């Protein structure tokens, strides 16, 4: 007994033989969003915990990367659009049912917020910076006075942004690989971890690195746990999701996923961080870079593989 499907009269670009309408732009957008969310979350957290003195890279230096990452992320999103002249249409409506819509709005809120945060530290970081106008100095003073409230807002929006990078995919019922609610928390945790990796890389203080490495180890643990959960869920679900999981369990994405994401992107850096905490001397940029690469490859593979998965009829 054999079943074969022929589709005639159809060979549409990007749709046939299998869907491939999203390319590198969307994974870049998701990666940078997660990274920015990670940095903002911890900058907010350690400010609220009154640890600004000890955690200088977290609170003061790394946030300078956030507006850059967010703007680059928005540019990547823009490049993905095929009807670019109409980009502004994104910002004339709010549609809560559409993750693409509320995500774009979240970015619209969080980008200026991160800029305000960075502005409040600009004179501390670049000692010769001059705001030129008196009103700008007054504004700076006002922001510095309200840093705590800003920190709360940043943490809150960072969580939404981080979860959004997963929900953007998980909301698509038609793509069985994406259609699991674990993707939101998983992308959030992965984003927080890439944020931490970046801060650890920038930090010059031993104490700060130690605190952050411990946190990162915890996040890597949670991430592995969620990934195991993801596959358990798929394998216990319907045929289309079992097939989706097979792409990573023997199918064409097996090697990239297990080598670059799991081993080189999570387990290996975790071992290095443990060794570092135990007092071995390890160049800190190695685990950080591996985590960042792993985080990007993870998103890239998920976006590519997810588009292949579909309902068969």
């Amino acid at each position, binding site marked *: 007994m054999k079943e074969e*499907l022929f589709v005639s*009269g159809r060979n*549409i670009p990007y749709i046939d033989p299998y869907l491939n309408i999203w390319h590198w732009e969307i994974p870049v957008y998701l990666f940078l969003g997660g990274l920015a969310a990670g940095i903002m979350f911890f900058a907010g957290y350690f400010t609220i915990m009154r640890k600004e003195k000890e955690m200088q890279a977290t609170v003061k230096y790394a946030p300078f990367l956030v507006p850059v990452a967010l703007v680059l992320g928005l540019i990547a999103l823009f490049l993905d659009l095929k009807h670019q002249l109409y980009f502004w249409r994104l910002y004339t409506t709010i549609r809560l049912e559409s993750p693409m819509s509320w995500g774009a709005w979240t970015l619209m809120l969080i980008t200026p917020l991160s800029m305000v945060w960075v502005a409040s530290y600009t004179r501390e970081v670049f000692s010769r910076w001059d705001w030129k106008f008196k009103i700008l100095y007054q504004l700076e003073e006002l922001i510095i006075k309200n840093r705590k409230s800003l920190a709360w807002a940043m943490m809150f929006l960072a969580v939404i942004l981080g979860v959004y990078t997963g929900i953007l995919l998980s909301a698509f019922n038609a793509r069985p690989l994406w259609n699991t609610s674990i993707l939101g928390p998983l992308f959030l945790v992965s984003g927080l971890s890439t944020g931490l990796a970046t801060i650890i890389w920038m930090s010059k203080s031993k104490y700060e690195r130690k605190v952050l490495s411990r946190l990162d180890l915890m996040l890597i643990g949670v991430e592995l746990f969620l990934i195991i959960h993801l596959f358990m869920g798929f394998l216990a679900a319907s045929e289309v999701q079992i097939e989706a999981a097979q792409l990573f369990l023997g199918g064409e994405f097996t090697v990239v996923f297990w080598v670059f994401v799991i081993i080189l992107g999570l387990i290996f850096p975790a071992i290095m961080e443990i060794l570092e905490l135990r007092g071995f001397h390890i160049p800190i940029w190695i685990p950080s870079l591996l985590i960042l690469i792993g985080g990007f490859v993870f998103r890239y593979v998920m976006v590519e593989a997810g588009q292949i998965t579909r309902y068969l009829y």
Partner: protein
Amino acid sequence: MRYAMAIDTKKCVGCSDCVVACQTENNVPHGYCRDWIVENVVGSYPNVEIELRSERCNHCDNSPCVRCCPTGASHIVEGGIVKVTHSECIGCGACIQSCPYDARYSHPDGYVDKCTFCDHRLALGQDPACVEVCPTSCLYFGDLEDPNSEVAKALKNRNWKVLAPEAGTKPQLYFLT
């Protein structure tokens, strides 16, 4: 009012006239199409069965493509027809990802395009181009809620199925088997 289409898989011969009629009627760019033919072959010789289906957008009752659209370009008009306003579409591709039937495509001009049930013809009291042209008259179109419509009559006396009902979109193309 609920527009729907019934496709008689026993009468269809897979000639692709509906595909060409749509491409002509709707100025579909070369290399693209809004409807297409699927040949489903089951078994091996001499026990072979072939099902021929003329497929297009299902104008789903629970349409994920409309829900995920960030600008509202994808929307539903009278009779449940799912349409895209080209001048509101930013070409983000979300709706293409969301459709379990791959019924949408990215038009070379940037916006997303798909079957409209030829609503411009419906407005004139005509049938969609594919229905009109079918040489075996195997496509039935009309208002599901009107018991005297072609589609309602076709569904009354025959067995039918919809495609991938497990995707949960409540598709409105009915395949007579």
